[in-house]
């Protein structure tokens, strides 16, 4: 019998807030795109609402599904993800957009397979590293298989090509490798080797090289390679401290590419300003990551610890890459902002991740910090909910 206690309330609140806020911002940012593509202002928004509803339902059921039961599914899951990743290249099944093949499916129903890959890889690595135990420090037992696995996945993902997702995946995998107790020499060898491989790849493909040059010097070609980042920076700049007001973005009128998906952060910055972005996007994401890492720290077993860490790093690292790219701090890549960007697959899979994390948070070994997770504010929270100390009340009385 699994021992469940109350879930982490911060995780629930930040997840719900981010989903709700994401819908709100999609409703504003997608108007122009939606009208041009379908003739209706709200088509994209309505689709996103449907996906959010599906995501919330899945989130609710996943948080009730014991995360230990993912262990036997780990290998199968990764296998399916790799097959899907290959299927992208089958003509007629795979779809391409923006120069890369990332989707499979037909008509309006498409699946971005890299999202499936991220989730299944995290589950698989958590399972795999746990099974290694102390052999995780070995060269032949862990290091080489790990490098081979990452090389295979890297090859498939880069072939799409999707450098941004590769950055997210390698960040997650490295963090999990480190947390599992990797030999530091091996760990840094992977990092250096990976960097060199990435450098060689950028040198070899003109499309990637152009992106890097654009990152180093955006003004070089403002109407060509530097167009996207220039428009994003214009959006952020015109937003200033307080923003132009909700719904008042001008860049979403076809100036900014991907305004409601990968670039939604620029639209939020333009409409709500630096303060709005900090309070409504970065703060909730930071809370999510903070509580996620806490869950990892207090998880009851190694599988739970690595799984919670991987899922948290996924959300946190992907958000960092997206926000960094839009604000010109990192080379521009196409990864969505978790919870917020328009896109069904991303939202649903991020909700699955949040659900699994929430399930782990119900099985942690609680410490003093869980007794009163809201501090002084907890009094108000408990007045309304009857819940004290993050624990369910066995008998509520007046």
């Amino acid at each position: 019998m699994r021992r469940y206690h109350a879930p982490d309330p911060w995780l629930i609140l930040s997840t719900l807030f981010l989903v709700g806020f994401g819908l709100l911002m999609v409703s504003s940012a997608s108007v122009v795109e939606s009208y041009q593509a379908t003739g209706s202002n709200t088509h994209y928004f309505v689709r996103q609402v449907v996906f959010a509803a599906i995501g919330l339902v899945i989130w609710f059921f996943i948080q009730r599904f014991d995360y230990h039961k993912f262990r036997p599914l780990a290998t199968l899951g990764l296998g399916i993800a790799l097959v899907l990743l290959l299927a992208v290249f089958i003509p007629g099944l795979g779809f391409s957009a923006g120069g890369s093949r990332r989707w499979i499916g037909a008509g309006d129903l498409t699946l971005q397979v890299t999202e499936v890959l991220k989730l299944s890889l995290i589950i698989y690595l958590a399972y795999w590293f746990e099974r290694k135990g102390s052999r995780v420090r070995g060269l032949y037992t862990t290091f080489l298989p790990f490098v081979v696995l990452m090389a295979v996945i890297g090859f498939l993902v880069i072939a799409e090509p999707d450098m941004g997702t590769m950055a997210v995946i390698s960040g997650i995998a490295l963090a999990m490798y480190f947390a599992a107790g990797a030999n530091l020499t091996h760990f840094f060898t992977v990092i250096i080797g990976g960097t060199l491989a990435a450098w060689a790849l950028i040198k070899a493909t003109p499309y990637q090289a152009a992106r890097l040059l654009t990152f180093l010097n955006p003004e070089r070609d403002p109407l060509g390679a530097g167009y996207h980042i220039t428009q994003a920076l214009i959006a952020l700049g015109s937003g200033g401290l307080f923003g132009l007001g909700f719904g008042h973005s001008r860049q979403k009128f076809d100036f900014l590419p991907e305004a409601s998906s990968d670039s939604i952060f620029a639209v939020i910055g333009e409409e709500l300003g630096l303060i709005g972005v900090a309070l409504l996007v970065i703060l909730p994401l930071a809370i999510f990551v903070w509580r996620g890492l806490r869950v990892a720290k207090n998880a009851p077993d190694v599988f739970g610890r690595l799984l919670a860490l991987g899922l948290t790093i996924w959300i946190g690292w992907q958000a960092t890459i997206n926000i960094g790219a839009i604000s010109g701090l990192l080379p521009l890549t196409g990864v969505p902002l978790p919870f917020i960007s328009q896109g069904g697959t991303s939202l649903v899979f991020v909700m699955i991740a949040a659900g699994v994390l929430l399930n782990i948070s119900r099985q942690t070994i609680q410490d003093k910090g869980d007794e009163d997770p809201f501090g002084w504010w907890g009094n108000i929270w408990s007045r309304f909910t009857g819940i004290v100390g993050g624990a369910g009340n066995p008998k509520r009385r007046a």
Partner: protein
Amino acid sequence: MVTNPVYRVGVLGLGREGINTLKFLGAAGIKSVGLDSKSATEWPAKDLRQLKRLTAELWLGRNYLAGIGELDIVFRSPGVPLDLPEVKKARRRGVVFSSLMQIFFELCSAQIIGVTGTKGKSTTVSLIYHLLKGRLPGKVYLGGNIGVPPLKLLSRLTKRDWVVLELSSFQLEDLAVSPAIAVLLDVSPEHLDRHKSFKKYLEAKSNLYLHQTKKDWLIASADHSVTRAVMHRAKSRALPYSTYKILPRGLYIVDGEIVYRHYQTKRRSVVLKREQLPLLGEHNLENALAAIATALVAGVKPQMISKRIGRFKPLKHRLELVGGLGRVRFVDDSLATTPIAAIAAIKTIPDQLSVIIGGVSKRENINELIHALNDSRVLGVVLIGKSTARFKRELKAAKVTTPYRSAPDLKTAVELAYKYLRGEGTVLLAPAFASFDMFKDAYDRGDKFKQIVRELVKQKL
């Protein structure tokens, strides 16, 4: 036949408790009818003489229930099932069924603390007694299975006194009164052959709290769905405890400290450190929490609890360390009479061990026990008793890699278990079943084990 009104009291079941009832009734000037399914020839002559002295009439043997409808009041021993057809019929005719417990509850002027649950009743009861003794204005008495028969206490009790009682589900079955402080430990399926179904078993236990008032207390675990459901249903003040959850009110553990949140004010106070507990094992942690919660509710100061708890001695045959030979320890857990208790015992032993297991198996599920035996820490399993065949079958079916052998008696079993360890570890007697095939009872089994260990140690030294 039964003409004198005095005769119309019957005592059903003439075991230990039945005889106590007879004595109590005799002291009140009532000579009653004794009923038992054992025929006159089966009784030892001495016991039969005593019974004859105590009763007006003895209805023994095959048709012992034939005349039960003529009686007015029948005191039933807890061992006799309530759903015998004759008993049912008599109840319908208006015969009142009562029990020793019922009289005690009705006549007792002291505050009663009643403890029930599947496992750990005795440990909890004695710990409660230990914590309360001398800390409260009145006197504290220990009654029930491990203390004095409750009726003997009756004349001594006053309003300020406390009685700590261990109540089995059979005693609770027809009790129409509830104790002032009811303690409900983990409820899991045991005694299934008697109680027909788990639901009925639960219903039997429910008498513990059903007749409580708003002023009474119910102390129960928040970790099990069954006891949680019970707390929702009770009218009394329900105080939960938990080994892994943080509770808004009640007793729980966080960062190695046992914390009490006041029932009304929810104020937090640390009662004691977890290391201070004198009991081994996870299941004993629950018992200790229940006992501490009871003491707090009864009005013992937290400082007193933390002071006294270190001096508590664990009970006999309950994970009792009975001897050592070189680097081998011998642990007696003869009272682990269910698979669940045996699993708990195996989990409690920190190092490598060999297990002596077996007895008369009931219908319990032993899958989890088999799983627990398939642990790298378990170096060998020795099977004793009637359940040997069943164990062999299930161990084989589950493809368990742990070596196992059967032993004809306990002595060879101990020797085999000792050999499995190759000089280091723990020999654990955790039979998982009742003992009636080879021993008088679980205590007898534990005593024999102790004796064998003592002889073995002497022999080898």
